[in-house]
């Protein structure tokens, strides 16, 4: 019965003093409250408990505290012990609560009933027990071992914690497969490439906004996404008191709304703007002399169009400034750039002056959008070189790296690999890394990185081979990888796909076996790190509430369950590995359950933080108990300028002429018996000769003919995206309008009113967007904050599975459209990074 009726009754009781007990029982909640009050259960505000954990909603990986009351997670905040962000947070953390209590979550293991796989085809999943599920997986492993083809097992990792190595790498190694495939190439490898080949840092940066005077951001929307959103949200308003901010982005972002200047660059042309700024800074004599050095006689010879004698300039902590100028920058005038990037020359000049004025307290930010393009590698390097030029590297108010922290390593599993396993490990990895066209130069090493999205291609063409058993974990590549359609086809081809997931996603829809995963933030152990505010922190996730449904610890627990079953079948190495290497560092006890492996692994990896006997630096903690209660360890404050001339580059300097890249490319070329030009050609770059080693301009690759696909597509991240996982929450759908120009309860593609008028599209119309890759339908939002000729749309919607809120019709019809069905499966091949951005030609029409 409706509570309304109960309400009526209670009202009558109140007013007339009548009402029978039988009728009053209709008003159950009131009675419960009364009963609780009688029993002395009073939930005084603030009487709950804050438990330390970590958010995995985006790559900020903020340390959190979850508020537990009545056994449920009710609030989330930044971890009060964090020196990075303190209690500050962001909006997407809250959506985790609705993820946790998502009524569409997977509750038990499920087995496919219908052998036919496809979108719109009911898989007829049926609920099975964990024993059955583990047995099925063990069957697959044992069969592969018997065939001596263990390499046909492929482990795919999406989002993860530092514990994930156990499931993805070490366990996979013991199982004899080289195929520990991470999602990193979907994430931001091209970004790391930029700082690696200039300053030897294969990693992310923190921006010291507390003390800066100028922020120039290429595509970064730090108030919304990527990385340390919490810290930047906390400090941004104060920074505006001291610094000017310019945001370069084809679409008007949340950060652009809080900036002094918005530079709506033409998609794919960030490098033109960056190089012209570098040119102008040099012409103006604005480089930071203490870092870069100066002309011997102090006279500026950087004059547009003319070369400079290398000996006339004496560099300090950098290498190759004059080469950069002579080979590239001398002709990169603001006028040259203006035509390409759509930003007026006078504006470029003005900003160049401001940058030089503020140097070295300036920061050039760069995001996925500017770099994860088919020819975006050199953009990454060019934009980072601008930081070098302005001397902001490792300076107060400048650009800092994430300090390295003494986080432990997963105990090695090498010695548990048997003969069958070693045979499998020798096979080529399924992602083709290291091939001529996929250098994947992680840390400069050929094939060091991952080419995540190439796996689908490999499966489809059975080159190098066809996997038989694919385990996907915390991933949804059918949804999150460009050219998602390709993944759908690929997964159909694999005979046994297992998916470890919280929701039946687009990936799960092709799975034969689905395993319920715990929610990362509330139901399991995990480790993450992040940096900001001059600190780097390591925080743990921990089970803060009782696990819902039948999920088990995924990254550590699943290997345990499998190892137990495999041991029963005579293959004991995995279990031996876990029992021997994952003893509780406090008591020395062997693990006896999935939960214990997870707990002990967490303790092992973080021991240097909590064990006073192993103390190295940063926060002093008294022991595991304190660490667990706080959930976090902070590094010592950042040491400024320590890396000047001690960088991990070939020359130890900040390289404008990258000896490091030269070495890497030459080595890769040699491996494939070609030269660097050959590598450039194979990876789609236009540069030849020396240009390959310096930050230079590459004409962006346009996907789709301008005549057929006249507009350019701009993909971005919503403020409410927990990567692709929050669309099934009502709070997400009802509040999407916090993204400038977006609509609530819609998957909105933003068009400039000028374009809309030409196309006959009004606000709220249903439109179809088509690229060479595919076609999606969504809602039009007319917004002046979109560069004419482009259409901007956030990733995150367009689910046709995942849940009833995320999809229009679960299993069949998407709500809106998935951007990745428009994006081609192409790469920034030097890093292996998927190219989500650049010049993606699309056609927009009213439906």
């Amino acid at each position, binding site marked *: 019965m409706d509570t309304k009726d109960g309400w009526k009754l209670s009202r009558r009781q109140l007013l007339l003093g009548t009402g029978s007990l039988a009728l009053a029982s209709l008003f159950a909640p009131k009675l419960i409250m009364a009963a609780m009050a009688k029993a002395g259960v009073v939930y*005084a505000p603030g009487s709950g408990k804050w438990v330390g954990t970590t958010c995995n909603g985006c790559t900020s990986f903020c340390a959190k505290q979850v508020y537990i009351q009545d056994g449920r997670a009710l609030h989330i905040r930044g971890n009060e012990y964090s020196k990075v962000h303190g209690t500050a947070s962001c909006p997407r953390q809250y959506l985790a609560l609705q993820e946790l209590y998502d009524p569409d979550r997977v509750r038990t293991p499920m087995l496919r009933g219908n052998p036919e796989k496809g979108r719109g085809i009911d898989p007829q999943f049926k609920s099975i027990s964990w024993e059955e599920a583990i047995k099925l997986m063990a069957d697959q492993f044992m069969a592969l071992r018997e065939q001596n083809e263990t390499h046909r097992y492929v482990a795919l990792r999406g989002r993860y914690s530092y514990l994930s190595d156990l499931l993805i790498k070490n366990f996979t190694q013991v199982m004899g497969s080289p195929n520990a495939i991470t999602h990193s190439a979907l994430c931001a490898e091209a970004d790391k490439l930029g700082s690696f080949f200039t300053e030897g840092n294969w990693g992310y940066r923190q921006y010291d906004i507390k003390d800066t005077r100028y922020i120039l951001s290429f595509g970064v929307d730090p108030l919304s996404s990527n990385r340390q959103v919490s810290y930047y949200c906390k400090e941004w308003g104060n920074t505006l008191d001291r610094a000017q901010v310019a945001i370069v982005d084809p679409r008007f972002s949340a950060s652009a709304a809080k900036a002094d200047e918005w530079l709506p660059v033409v998609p794919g042309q960030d490098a033109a703007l960056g190089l012209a700024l570098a040119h102008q800074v040099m012409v103006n004599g604005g480089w930071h002399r203490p870092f870069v050095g100066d002309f011997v006689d102090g006279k500026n010879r950087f004059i547009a169009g003319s070369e400079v004698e290398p000996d006339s300039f004496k560099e300090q902590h950098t290498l190759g400034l004059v080469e950069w100028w002579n080979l590239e920058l001398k002709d990169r005038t603001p006028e040259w750039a203006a035509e390409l990037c759509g930003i007026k020359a006078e504006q470029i000049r003005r900003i160049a002056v401001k940058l030089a004025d503020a140097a070295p307290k300036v920061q050039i930010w760069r995001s996925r959008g500017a770099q994860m393009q088919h020819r975006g590698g050199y953009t990454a390097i060019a934009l980072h070189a601008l930081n070098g030029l302005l001397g902001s590297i490792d300076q107060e108010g400048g650009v800092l790296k994430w300090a390295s922290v003494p986080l432990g390593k997963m105990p090695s599993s090498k010695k548990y690999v048997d003969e069958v396993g070693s045979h499998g490990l020798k096979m080529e990895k399924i992602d083709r890394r290291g091939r001529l066209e996929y250098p994947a130069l992680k840390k400069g090493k050929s094939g060091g990185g991952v080419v995540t999205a190439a796996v689908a291609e490999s499966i489809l063409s059975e080159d190098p081979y066809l996997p038989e058993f694919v385990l996907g974990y915390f991933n949804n590549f059918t949804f999150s990888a460009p050219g998602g359609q390709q993944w759908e086809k690929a997964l159909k081809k694999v005979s046994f796909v297992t998916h470890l997931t919280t929701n039946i996603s687009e990936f799960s829809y092709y799975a034969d076996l689905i395993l319920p995963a715990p929610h990362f933030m509330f139901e399991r152990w995990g480790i993450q790190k992040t940096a900001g505010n001059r600190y780097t922190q390591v925080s743990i996730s921990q089970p803060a509430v009782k696990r819902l449904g039948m999920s088990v610890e995924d990254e550590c627990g699943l290997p345990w369950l499998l190892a137990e079953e495999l041991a029963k079948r005579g293959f004991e190495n995995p279990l031996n590995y876990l029992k021997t290497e994952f003893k509780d560092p406090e008591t020395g006890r062997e693990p006896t359950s999935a939960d214990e492996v997870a707990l002990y692994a967490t303790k092992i990896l973080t021991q240097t933080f909590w064990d006073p006997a192993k103390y190295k630096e940063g926060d002093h903690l008294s022991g595991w108990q304190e660490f667990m209660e706080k959930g976090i360890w902070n590094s010592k404050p950042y040491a400024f300028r320590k890396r000047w001339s001690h960088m991990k580059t070939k020359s130890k300097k900040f390289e404008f002429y990258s000896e490091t890249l030269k070495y890497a490319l030459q080595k890769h070329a040699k491996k494939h018996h070609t030269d660097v030009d050959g590598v450039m050609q194979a990876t789609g770059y236009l540069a030849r000769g020396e240009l390959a080693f310096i930050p230079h301009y590459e004409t962006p690759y346009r996907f789709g003919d301008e005549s057929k696909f006249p507009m350019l597509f701009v993909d971005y991240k919503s403020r409410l995206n927990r990567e692709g996982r929050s669309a099934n929450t009502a709070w997400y759908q009802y509040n999407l309008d*916090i993204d*400038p120009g977006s609509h609530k309860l819609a998957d909105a593609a933003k068009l400039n009113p000028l374009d809309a008028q030409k196309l006959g599209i009004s606000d709220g119309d249903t439109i179809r967007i088509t690229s060479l890759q595919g076609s999606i339908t969504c809602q039009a939002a007319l917004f002046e904050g979109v560069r004419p000729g482009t259409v901007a749309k956030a990733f995150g919607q367009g689910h046709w599975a995942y849940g009833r809120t995320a999809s229009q019709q679960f299993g069949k019809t998407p709500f809106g459209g998935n951007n990745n069905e428009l994006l081609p499966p192409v790469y920034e091949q030097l890093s292996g990074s998927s190219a989500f951005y650049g010049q993606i030609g699309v056609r927009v029409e009213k439906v």
Partner: protein
Amino acid sequence: MRYGMVIDQQKCVGCAGCVFACKAENHTPPEINWCDKIITSSGQFPDVRFEYLSTMCNHCDDAPCVKGCPTQAMHKGEGGLTLHEQEKCIGCKACMENCPYGVISFNWQRPHQEWQENKGLAAGTFTPSVMLAEAGGEGSPLSNPERGGSYPLMRSRGTVEKCNFCDHRLKVGLNPVCVDACPSNARVVGDLDDPNSEVSMLIRKYDGKPLKPELGTGSKVFYIRRYTPENR
């Protein structure tokens, strides 16, 4: 004692953290936000502006909703708060008509009824009612029993609801949850009667203004500084 709030628009980054914290604290259904926002976009490419203005009940000293309410469901409480008593609400919507700020919401539907459904997506998934039973909670797993002590967690269909400044938290010395949740520390709560309170000082320093001051409602949420940087 007169509770008031100051919202620093320069510090606000428009993240809506306040909105979500409020939803979590007060168990509002998805379509009702006690803490909400006014969003304005203006200008023409490339000179575009976008502003986020956080809104909630202004707890007016001379509250039009209180005057208009026929049953005293909407009433003035301790500390000058404008409070709502669910039990007395008859759903006449006079408060909604009278509120010049548009911050009172009506429960057209029975709130949280989606949790009663017992249909899952597949044999091995939860259903709303199974999730509710397994996770616990009154009406939905997200219901906050701390709120339930002084305001019903399950509001009746046909009644209004609105922000009450987290009166239950103020009572025990805690800030309203939106204040604590704001990552930018853009919100400050305090006593407007005390000239030395932070709110009073901020209002003086930055010449804080409430919304629609011309109406003379005595609204007690003040805004200071600009969302968009000055030299824009």
